[in-house]
């Protein structure tokens, strides 16, 4: 994420990073002001924008399973761009030891996890397909041979905030 939470990878309804000329081009073509285009990029883009189905991954995966091509396209674009971002951080860190998945999609949408990891095979990442099907618990989902360990670690933002708060007032 960048200046605001709009940047980076595509999200449920947010675009992530773009060629900035896309922003000015749409403003000119559709005659939108900055507030309107911001709303469009925050609320009507991402996998929702491509699929036209919903901002909820469960709905999009369901539609894709029923043969909805734009739903499948949205999931492909999502996994591709997330995997590319992981590789760009492998450049940053000069390699990766462990990849973690968390939050709604990261903890529960095992199809998307698999798709992302499949894009990273060349880095020596191997996923255990059975373990990957487990939802919402702390678990190692890479296979024993995988050069990179892959974990699902459910996040708990409220607990972190409570702990930080307590520490500061002590």
């Amino acid at each position, binding site marked *: 994420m960048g200046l605001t939470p709009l940047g980076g990878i595509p999200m449920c309804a947010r*675009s992530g990073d773009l060629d900035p000329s*896309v922003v000015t081009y*749409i*403003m000119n073509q559709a005659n939108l002001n900055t507030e309107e285009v911001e709303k469009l990029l925050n609320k009507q883009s991402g996998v929702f924008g491509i699929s036209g189905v919903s901002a909820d991954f469960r709905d999009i995966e369901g539609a894709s399973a029923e043969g909805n091509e734009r739903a499948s396209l949205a999931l492909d*674009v999502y996994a591709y761009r997330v995997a590319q971002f992981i590789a760009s951080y492998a450049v940053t860190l000069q390699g990766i030891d462990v990849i973690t998945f968390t939050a709604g999609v990261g903890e529960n949408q095992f199809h998307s996890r698999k798709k992302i990891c499949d894009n990273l095979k060349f880095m020596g990442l191997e996923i255990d397909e059975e373990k990957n099907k487990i939802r919402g618990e702390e678990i190692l989902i890479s296979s024993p041979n995988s050069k990179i360990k892959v974990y699902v670690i459910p996040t708990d933002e409220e607990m972190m905030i409570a702990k930080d708060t307590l520490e500061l007032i002590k």
Partner: protein
Amino acid sequence: MKVLVVNCGSSSLKYCLIDMENEKVLAKGNIERIGQYNSIITHKINGEKYKKERNVYSHEEALKIVMEELVNSDYPAIKSFNEIEAVGHRVVHGGERFKQATIIDEDVIKGIEDAIRYAPLHNPAHLQGIRAIQKILPDVPNVAVFDTAFHQTIPKEHYIYPIPYEYYEKYGVRKYGAHGTSHKYVSHRIAEILNKDIKDLKIISCHLGQGASICAIQNGISVDTSMGLTPLGGIPMGSRSGDLDPSVVTYIMEQENLTPREMDRILNKKSGLHGISGISNDNRDILREIPNGNERADLAMKVYCYLIAQYIGKYAVTMNGVDVITFTGGVGEKGPDERKMICSYLNFMGVELDEEKNKVTNMEYELSKDDSRVKLWIVPTEEELIIAKETNEIINK
């Protein structure tokens, strides 16, 4: 067989006359400040450079001057116009319609007009050049060679943006890419050099010049590239930003009260290396300032090389690996400092630059160590020659 290559910008024109028998450049030059006073005409022939100043009001007038220089000057390159057998025009944007170079007829002109919305400065200038040549050389075939054509093989999941799909359908918003002519040439050339079938190679081609783009080439075709809807997208360039969190665009517009056109100008002309360093859009000027302790110059080069290295990592994902990385364009061919900094990020992928070999500039040369898993090469590009070759091929089909 002699081919004239014409590259019309909004207020400039570059030309090059090539003898296809031996691929020799007979004469070349450019005209700057077209449509303004004191236009500058530079003509090069036999290692000599001739400079003139006069008012040139249109691309048609400019091309008439080119013809005079080529034929009737004190230093003629050819005896008569009849020796020019074809004219190849560089066209920046071909939209989704043009998947290869094409002989120009009225329908093709219509297609180039339709793509004006994606390249509002370039395509109208190209059309003026085409119309002018049609008047001056009515019997000579014109060929359009598109910067976007090579990238028309990119699969949909790589060219569609995560924005409402209707904008793709209604306004054609998608990735088109650019520098296609150069990426195509370099990828075929490196396969030749390595004596391999291009279909067996995973190539990342880095065209680093004033404009810069990276292309992933697998099975001999472009499967992804960094420039986007327009040549503004992708990696940072001399004065262009490359990809951004789009909220940067709207935030600056609101803070500075800018129109989309003004914002476009800032992102195209005042960003990239120039924007960060505040020095210049030329890498050499910026590198010169680093030993003097200029922190923003140092920062600009670090951002530039980091973001390029990240893009190379991205395209390793696209192709599930990479066999060879090529460098071309002004910076790619003549920028050992940049190449070194970019490659320093990529050791983990099996990229090992030989620092001694890396001192070489401006020629076809292998830069990687013998045991580097990924090969590194300089492959100089010659866009005019490639355009002439494509033109030649098409009219002889």
